[in-house]
């Protein structure tokens, strides 16, 4: 992630220079200036779409609709209001951008209830609805649209022709800066975790849906801004100009340039603006070429042009620790403020169709204890974890965390209370480094970046992972993956930690380490609930063992009692068939 955005920040000054040089060269050449202005207008919309596609994995084929909202707001406002010219464009543009952002929120809200392909269809429908409404609305001029849209005027300066180039690029630069800011630091990491693994992001307290909806609104607002500039620059808005083809062209720019990067969006927009102008006499073949190009790019270079360039830009240095002493050394874990039991599960039942995976389970955990949940495969242990963490709805029962009823809450809300979780299959963010993974784990603390980095390093040192800080998570060895996931889960100092089979696949020395680490966490005051199959580990570290069989809690008590419980022995080894046992 830092590599992605880092390459972006390195490339942007170069691109800015290109824009400035081109602008100076284009001073005497109206065609150049026009192509350059279009490039800026497209770039603004493409930057938003790029964030949507590259960072939250959502396709939109409806960006022309948002573009149209901005364009028509300006066309209508500036031609029908009686306002001083210096006011009318900014006001109409602001309204258009706001309308587009709101529409983006709405589309995002509707679309995010469904999987990817429904979403793309919903955006396409939105775009077509907009064109249809523009086409049918007498107020907006119907099929012939709105003509004679005045140029924006600021005092003696009229924004038309050559000045429009600088005007449009100023907005594009602003959009680029805002995007870069969104993509770095805490919010940037959140976007990156969503791209990598949504569920893992949620259990770190990252509100993934909110981020996606914000991405939609942001992409919508930028498309609206592009439309607002377009209307003023061209002086005419017709429904056909904001048709599906514009949406496809914007998509192509992003794919061509490389989605998820600001530089890629700029490169893609500039290229298409140039092809657009120079290919004017080749109508139809030009669009066919676009189609061929987009298919060729997704097949041959899915990262787009900037994806190819990025590999050649040296990865920038990872964030370094400040030399000052740790602002907040690893303190003992603060217990839930109100002194209530960290976790109380009451009558929890989860059915999948006819299968009862968890059946009327109730228990309460004491603060600062380590409890293990054991049971044969398929006993419902992970399902119970998911139920506690808010993943999936409960069929019945309630979950109370530190006195707060969290039944039915989204996972990120439960995580935000101070609950950490690891997964059976160590769901790390593969495209992020170990340090970035752990930094993402600090999300819910809202620390300033410097403190967050400090905290992440301290966590890594605690688990002796510091040498791996800059390794990409997908390149890690298996045992290290588990330890990094643990580091990520404890980076925000949760007071309740749910650990799902941490010892699975570990060798003997790794298991000893794990045992030490878990005990140390408990001694810090953390409350741990552990799913584990390794009985030696379970018996060695647990103060309490609960046994789940076919979803039902069949034993609960100190390890030695549970070990000798006939029901438990039967669950694991089976019972002798009466009459055959004696030999």
């Amino acid at each position, binding site marked *: 992630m830092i590599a992605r955005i880092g390459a972006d920040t390195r490339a942007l000054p170069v691109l800015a220079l290109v824009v400035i040089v081109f602008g100076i060269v284009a001073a005497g050449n109206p065609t150049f200036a026009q192509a350059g202005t279009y490039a800026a207008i497209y770039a603004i919309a493409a930057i938003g779409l790029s964030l949507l596609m590259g960072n939250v994995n959502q396709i939109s084929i409806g960006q022309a609709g948002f573009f149209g909202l901005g364009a028509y707001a300006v066309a209508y406002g500036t031609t029908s209001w009686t306002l001083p010219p210096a006011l009318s464009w900014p006001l109409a543009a602001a309204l258009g951008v706001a309308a587009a952002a709101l529409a983006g929120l709405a589309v995002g809200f509707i679309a995010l209830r469904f999987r990817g392909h*429904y979403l793309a269809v919903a955006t*396409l429908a939105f775009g077509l609805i907009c064109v249809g409404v523009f086409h*049918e609305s007498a107020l907006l001029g119907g099929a012939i649209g709105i003509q004679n849209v005045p140029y924006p005027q600021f005092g003696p300066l009229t924004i038309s022709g050559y000045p429009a180039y600088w005007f449009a690029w100023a907005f594009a630069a602003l959009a680029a800066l805002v995007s870069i800011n969104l993509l770095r630091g805490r919010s940037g990491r959140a976007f990156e975790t969503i791209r990598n693994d949504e569920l893992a992001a949620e259990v770190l307290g990252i509100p993934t849906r909110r981020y996606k909806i914000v991405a939609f609104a942001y992409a919508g607002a930028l498309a609206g801004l592009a439309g607002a500039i377009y209307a003023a620059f061209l002086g005419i808005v017709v429904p056909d100009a904001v048709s599906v083809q514009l949406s496809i062209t914007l998509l192509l720019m992003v794919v061509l340039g490389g989605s998820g990067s600001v530089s890629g969006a700029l490169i893609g927009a500039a290229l298409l603006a140039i092809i657009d102008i120079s290919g004017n006499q080749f109508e139809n073949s030009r669009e066919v070429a676009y*189609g061929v190009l987009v298919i060729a790019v997704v097949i041959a270079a899915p990262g787009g042009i900037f994806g190819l360039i990025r590999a050649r830009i040296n990865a920038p240095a990872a964030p370094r620790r400040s030399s000052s002493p740790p602002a907040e050394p690893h303190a003992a874990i603060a217990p839930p403020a109100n002194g209530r039991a960290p976790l109380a599960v009451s009558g929890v039942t989860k059915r999948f169709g006819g299968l009862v995976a968890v059946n009327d389970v109730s228990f309460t955990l004491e603060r600062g204890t380590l409890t293990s949940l054991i049971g044969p495969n398929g006993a419902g242990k992970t399902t119970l974890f998911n139920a506690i963490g808010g993943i999936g709805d409960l069929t019945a029962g309630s979950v109370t965390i530190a006195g707060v009823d969290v039944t039915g809450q989204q996972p990120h809300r439960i995580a935000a209370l101070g609950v950490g979780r690891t997964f059976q299959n160590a769901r790390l963010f593969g495209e992020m480094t170990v340090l970035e993974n752990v930094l993402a784990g600090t999300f819910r603390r809202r620390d300033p970046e410097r403190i967050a980095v400090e905290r992440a390093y301290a966590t890594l040192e605690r688990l002796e992972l510091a040498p791996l800080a800059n390794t990409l998570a997908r390149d890690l060895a298996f045992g290290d993956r588990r330890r990094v996931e643990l580091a990520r889960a404890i980076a925000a100092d949760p007071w309740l930690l749910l650990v799902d089979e941490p010892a699975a696949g570990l060798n003997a020395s790794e298991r000893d380490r794990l045992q030490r680490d878990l005990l140390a966490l408990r001694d810090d005051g953390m409350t741990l609930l552990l799913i584990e199959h390794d009985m030696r580990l379970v018996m060695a570290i647990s103060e309490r063992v609960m046994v789940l069989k076919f979803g039902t809690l069949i034993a609960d008590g100190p390890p030695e009692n549970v070990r000798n419980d006939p029901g438990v022995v039967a669950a694991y080894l089976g019972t002798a068939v009466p009459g055959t046992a004696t030999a």
Partner: protein
Amino acid sequence: MLQLLVAGLTVGSGYALVALGIHIVLRATRIINFAQGEFTIVGGLLALTFVEVFRANTWVALAGATIAGFVLGLAFERIVLRPAARSGEMALTIATIGMVSILLYGHALVPGWGSLPQPLPAFTGDVSDALDLAGVSIQIQSLWVLALLLLALAVLYVFFERTYYGKAIRAAANDPVGARLIGIDVTNARSVSVGLAIALAAYGGTIIGPITLVGGAGGVVIAIKGFVAAIIGGLESPAGCVLGGLLVGVIEKLIQGLPGVSYGISDPIVYALLLVGLLVRPQGLIGARGAVRD
């Protein structure tokens, strides 16, 4: 009223076939083929070529266009979809959007096709021939469209439910890994599925051709109405797709038939139905709950 109903069922037949095609590609590749509507347009134009170049009648043209559509589908799968699938689902979806651009603008470049819609000869008699039914005049062509839709459905049903090969394709779509384990050529099944879907598009584009004309830039509109149909009826259910298609056609004609309603406003209303449908009943009228939400 009855007249509007028949007119609705007629255009709805086209949407039903598009929805079915989308359904088949979705089953085989897990993505939505945004180019399905464009293939419908191209299919109608292929029929036109058979009529104009080979002096075929519309029946022969229908067979020719369907076979040509199948071949086109195989090529589409081999040249575009299969390589793009390696870059992920999003890339695959984007590739079908690229295909929209190619077909939408490309068909205008083909000699004899052009960018303006053209008439296809009627299946029997003249396009304007009508049957007088208790004072309501019903276009003979409409009846042909409905009959041909039923024929296509019957053939598809027999193929997917009664033949070994059809069942193998369904198995490959349901569970590619499992199908591979029992010796089904999943790659081949996928390619035949896409071929069938595009053949269906060509068939659909041809049967409605005499009434709605063939060619033009309406592919995106046809495609989105196919989506609306598929989503209203249930994207995962073939019967739902057909029902949804007919329903969308009827709703569209009824809206257009309302007094004082501008002809062009029916489309945005139908699209809005899609958004409402997505919100209210994402699994469609026919479809298992939980199939859609994540």
